[in-house]
């Protein structure tokens, strides 16, 4: 039986492959592994999954030579804001390579960053659609924002410069803020589980807080892909406290920004926003105090005016009463004086009595009666003839 050496077989395969695939090809795939070595080459594993993203349809090794990597990785980072990393969908320009010792491998000569950006956009869109379909996308936005957002649960990396900026800004304001840091990774693969865990810890003390602030430290990385996460966006959207995001973005908003109650660009802007809420309340208080002062003054003036009026009325009433009473006394005095018998006698009138009885008519006496006539200065006794 005729037989071939393994090398001969594989060498033939190599020649066939190189003949069948002489050019470069643009291939869509997902990076499932990415390793480097001391010489600067990058070794990758590329896969393609089925529509649901679960079952593997294809898998192969790939390599980016050090010389290519330097230019490619910098360009990719510049255009996408993220380093080339595991989990990304990429469009790569490859050459098919087969080596009898190392097997099949794709040599990557170029990468199209716009494909990865497009994939992110699609993924973001898918997540947003799903949140919308589930009716949760606007839940956090619909929460009433607290009038005084002073008790703040902060999700951030404790070392992040952004966190420091946020705290400095708050403490420079004239208001008292109570902040509690719930440390979490805010970039990279671990961001999603660690932020979810922080949310769980906040829920246990939910009564102690008014708002949740999710801030990302400053720094060089502008990778926001960890915020385009369905589990994270879903948890934030349904979180019982309003979420304020200040995760910073140079490109479009992340999904987290889309579901947050308030989305701001930076940790500093987030602090400014919270301070502005208190400024607004403070101004309301100042105007209310002014209004209260104004109305009290008006009211006092009205009451003073009323009192003055009453005072005047009372004075007049009293004067009238006094006059009436004095007048009445005058009249009575006159009356009394008019009736004083002595006064009558003084004027020349006299009073005649007969046996002690007052005589008013001539017919009341008869001749021989003794009359007593009283005058001012004495009494005359006389006899009727």
């Amino acid at each position, binding site marked *: 039986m005729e037989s071939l050496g393994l090398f001969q077989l594989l060498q033939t395969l190599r020649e066939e492959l190189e003949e069948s695939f002489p050019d470069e090809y643009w291939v869509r795939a997902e990076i499932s592994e990415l390793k480097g070595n001391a010489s600067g080459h990058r070794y990758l594993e590329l896969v393609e999954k089925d529509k649901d993203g679960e079952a593997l349809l294809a898998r192969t090794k790939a390599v980016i030579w050090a010389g290519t990597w330097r230019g490619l990785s910098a360009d990719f980072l510049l255009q996408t804001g993220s380093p080339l990393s595991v989990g990304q969908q990429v469009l790569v320009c490859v050459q098919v390579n087969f080596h009898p010792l190392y097997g099949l491998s794709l040599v990557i000569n170029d990468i199209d960053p716009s494909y990865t950006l497009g994939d992110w956009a699609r993924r973001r869109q898918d997540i947003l659609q799903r949140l919308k379909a589930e009716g949760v996308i606007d839940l956090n936005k619909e929460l009433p924002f607290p009038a005084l957002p002073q008790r703040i649960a902060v999700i951030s990396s404790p070392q992040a410069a952004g966190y420091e900026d946020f705290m400095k800004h708050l403490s420079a304001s004239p208001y008292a803020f109570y902040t509690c840091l719930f440390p979490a990774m805010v970039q990279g693969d671990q961001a999603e589980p660690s932020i979810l865990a922080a949310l769980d810890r906040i829920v246990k003390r939910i009564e102690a807080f008014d708002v949740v602030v999710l801030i990302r430290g400053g720094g060089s990385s502008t990778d926001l892909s960890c915020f385009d996460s369905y589990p994270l966006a879903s948890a934030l959207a349904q979180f019982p406290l309003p979420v304020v995001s200040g995760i910073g973005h140079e490109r479009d908003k992340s999904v987290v920004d889309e579901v947050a109650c308030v989305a701001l660009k930076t940790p500093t802007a987030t602090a400014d926003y919270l301070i502005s809420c208190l400024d607004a309340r403070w101004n309301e208080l100042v105007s209310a105090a002014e209004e209260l002062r104004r109305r009290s003054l008006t009211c006092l003036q009205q009451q*003073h005016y009323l009192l003055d009026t009453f*005072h005047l009325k009372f*004075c007049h009433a009293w004067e009238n009463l006094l006059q009436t009473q004095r007048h009445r006394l005058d009249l009575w005095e006159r009356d009394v004086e008019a009736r004083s*018998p*002595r006064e009558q006698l003084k004027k020349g009138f006299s009073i005649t009595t007969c046996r002690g009885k007052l005589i008013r008519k001539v017919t009341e006496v008869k001749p021989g009666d003794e009359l007593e006539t009283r005058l001012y200065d004495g009494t005359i006794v006389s006899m009727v003839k």
Partner: protein
Amino acid sequence: MAELKTILDGLNSSSPDIDTMEKQVERARELIQVCRETLTKTDRAVQAVFEEMQPCNN
């Protein structure tokens, strides 16, 4: 005042006893004097109250 009124009413219905009438007139004079003094005192008291109220006014 009531006593004064009674005396005045009494004086209006003529009484033969001049001395009694004269006494009543005297009493009426006294009462009128008392009433005048009472009025004056009350007026002073009321004016004092008005004075106290004065600081409330603007």
